[in-house]
């Protein structure tokens, strides 16, 4: 038993007692193909266990690896959302780095203030000028694409050196699965329910990465926690550029997407394998697909695993497939070669694992 005030004495927790000595090494199929194949991560966990996130919530996966890359000299700004209400509930916190939550719609501006303060304090000698302190916003899709959009745009335009990580679970899952600006077409959410007349959400996902790139910021990427190597490599790159960076990370949500908890990673794999989610980066305007998909699965593989799409009629599924085909075509055109291949109906949706 311990009171809130006494936690000040507990040092940053390192899982040293388990002698964790693990480096992320790329699985064999990636070796030699990508520059991040042998990227190593430290042992320390800075995102500690004991949180209120749903069982299998991939926010935990993103936050753990994010802090492994950014390290202890990091300040995290966490606007309102699942991550915030589940991880820092007085008197406990899961974060091993300085962390702040102010409100819902101001991740970008709070980060601007913190970044500016660090700059000014370095000039006045309060903080060692040689020390690199990462300012990281960890915000959900609502706090980024909807209510936090203005603050985000202002932060980009003013050029603050802030790493903005958006975990996108495609809705307001914290308040009970309402639709947001990034809810995909056809998804049933509580404010866009699949009704007799309207088949769920009728709008398309807001292209946040493209909008961020339009601000001319030095680094923009999309990532998927099912491909951890790709994700951490992007965090690392974002950390190294001079200026704002934006990483749009897809995050699977058990109660919101309505899949069995154990499929949290599988459903994310399927998002990439079907071309629903393309992992790319835009570095100083140069567009590059970091995870090519030579042959795509049909989008129904991704949709049928989730309860939120269960009501869709075959023609609606085909419509979603067409939209993806069009997007893939556009991506291939921009890249100049076929990085995302055609749909191969022979590919099984779920390969049974042993």
């Amino acid at each position: 038993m311990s009171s809130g005030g006494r936690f000040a004495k507990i040092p940053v927790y390192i899982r040293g007692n388990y002698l964790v000595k693990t480096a992320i090494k790329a699985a064999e199929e990636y070796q030699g193909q990508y520059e991040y194949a042998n990227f190593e991560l430290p042992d320390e966990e800075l995102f500690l266990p004991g949180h209120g996130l749903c069982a299998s919530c991939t926010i935990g996966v993103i936050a753990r690896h994010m802090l492994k890359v950014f390290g202890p000299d990091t300040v995290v700004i966490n606007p309102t959302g699942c991550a915030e209400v589940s991880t820092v509930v007085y008197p406990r916190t899961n974060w091993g780095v300085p962390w702040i939550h102010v409100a819902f719609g101001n991740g970008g501006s709070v980060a601007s203030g913190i970044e500016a303060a660090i700059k000014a304090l370095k000039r006045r000698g309060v903080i060692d000028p040689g020390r690199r302190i990462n300012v990281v916003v960890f915000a959900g899709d609502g706090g980024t694409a909807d209510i936090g959009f203005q603050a985000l745009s202002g932060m980009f335009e003013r050029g603050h050196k802030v790493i903005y990580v958006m975990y996108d679970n495609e809705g307001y899952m914290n308040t009970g699965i309402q639709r947001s600006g990034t809810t995909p077409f056809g998804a049933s959410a509580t404010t866009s329910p699949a009704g007799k007349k309207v088949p769920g959400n009728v709008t398309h996902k807001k292209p946040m990465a493209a909008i961020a790139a339009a601000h001319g910021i030095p680094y923009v990427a999309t990532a998927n926690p099912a491909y951890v190597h790709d994700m951490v490599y992007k965090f690392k790159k974002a950390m190294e550029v001079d200026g704002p960076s934006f990483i749009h990370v897809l995050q699977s949500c058990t109660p919101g997407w309505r899949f069995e908890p154990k499929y949290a990673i599988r459903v994310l794999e399927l998002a990439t394998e079907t071309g629903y989610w393309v992992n790319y980066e835009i570095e100083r305007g140069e567009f590059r697909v970091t995870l090519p998909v030579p042959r795509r699965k049909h989008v129904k593989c991704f949709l049928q695993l989730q309860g939120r799409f269960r009501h869709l009629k075959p023609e609606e599924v085909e419509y979603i497939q067409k939209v993806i085909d069009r997007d893939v075509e556009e991506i291939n055109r921009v890249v100049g070669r076929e990085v995302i291949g055609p749909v191969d109906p022979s590919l099984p949706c779920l390969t049974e694992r042993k």
Partner: protein
Amino acid sequence: MTAQALAPVEKKVAQRRIALTGNHAVALAVKMCRPEVIAAYPITPQTPVVEKLAEYVNNGELDAEYIPVESEHSAMSAVIGASAAGARTFTETSSQGLGHMYENLPIAVGMRLPIVMGMAVRTYSAPINVWGDYSDVMSMRELGWIIYIAQSAQEAFDTVIQAYRVAEDSRVHLPAVVAYDGFWTSHVLQPLDVPEDEEEVMRFAPITRSWVRLDVDNPAQLGAVGTPEWYWEVRWQAVEALRESQKVIEEVDEEFGKWFGRRYGLFRTHRTEDAELVVVTYGSLYGLAKKVADRLRQEGVRAGALRLRVIRPWPGDQLKKALEAAEKVFVIDRAINHGAYLQGPMAMELAATLQRPVYSALATIGMRAIDSDMIYEAALKVLKGLWAPNQTYTIGLRGGYE
């Protein structure tokens, strides 16, 4: 602390007399306090403050980060972030701008951040009106900020310096707002004394950095969820700190007097000792109220005037003492408390403090013009019993309750 105790003291700091508008006086005071981060968004009538500060920064006269944010919501957010990171901060706003940053105002209190905000007051829309009344700052009373209302450019200048010292005191750690009349102070050129050596201001109000900060070497975290089990206790610390701050405000004011030769107290009084009628108001209107009191004295009426300066924390006991002998307390409010028993916000608070009826009137709403004759007429109505207590009358409203 009343005016009676405010005898002139010997100045410790050499000063020179200059002439500035209220806004520029505030900007100069802020510059002398060396904030590290300034974030602001333009809105009339405060804009000249942030323009001047931007000029100071870009000319290298002030070493600070100036964030030209895209809204007031972001301005307050950015100073909250910067203050949480350990920097001395400043922002300024008015009216709708305050409304836009509203959700962040109580957050700064809960996080105990010593933010100093200037405010050239302006009424709320609609209809849109860019001119000065105190509707905006009055809407901040419930949030936990320290609220100062200054009368002149000199007082606004001095109060900004005092506010930094109070807010950053480890017994306080609360945000403070310094409000002054939009236009009637903000845009009026007035003489004021400022220190010859700017360093004196930093010696008087050094940056303490004693508040809870986001420090990578000792990672405290701010803004945790406060469940019903914890919220009240965490918030109560801010409530107690605000109560405690009154002592600190008086201490700082007294010491400021010793350094710079000017003291203001929690409120100011003019000939109230034996007064049967006391005209209570705030901001630049005090000069008129004093003039009316003098005129009534000449006519044989024992009249006085009182100006509210620190309205949060509310100096209830002191006001009670200062006004206990006065038969009639006539409060001229400069903001509307819509739908309340008395429509003047300060009249309501004074009635509750004194536990007897007060006379209430509204004036300068939307910056409706006023002169001392109008106040004199109103005071006569109170004296003659034409205006009753427990009712709100208006001074200058066409077709109003006169």
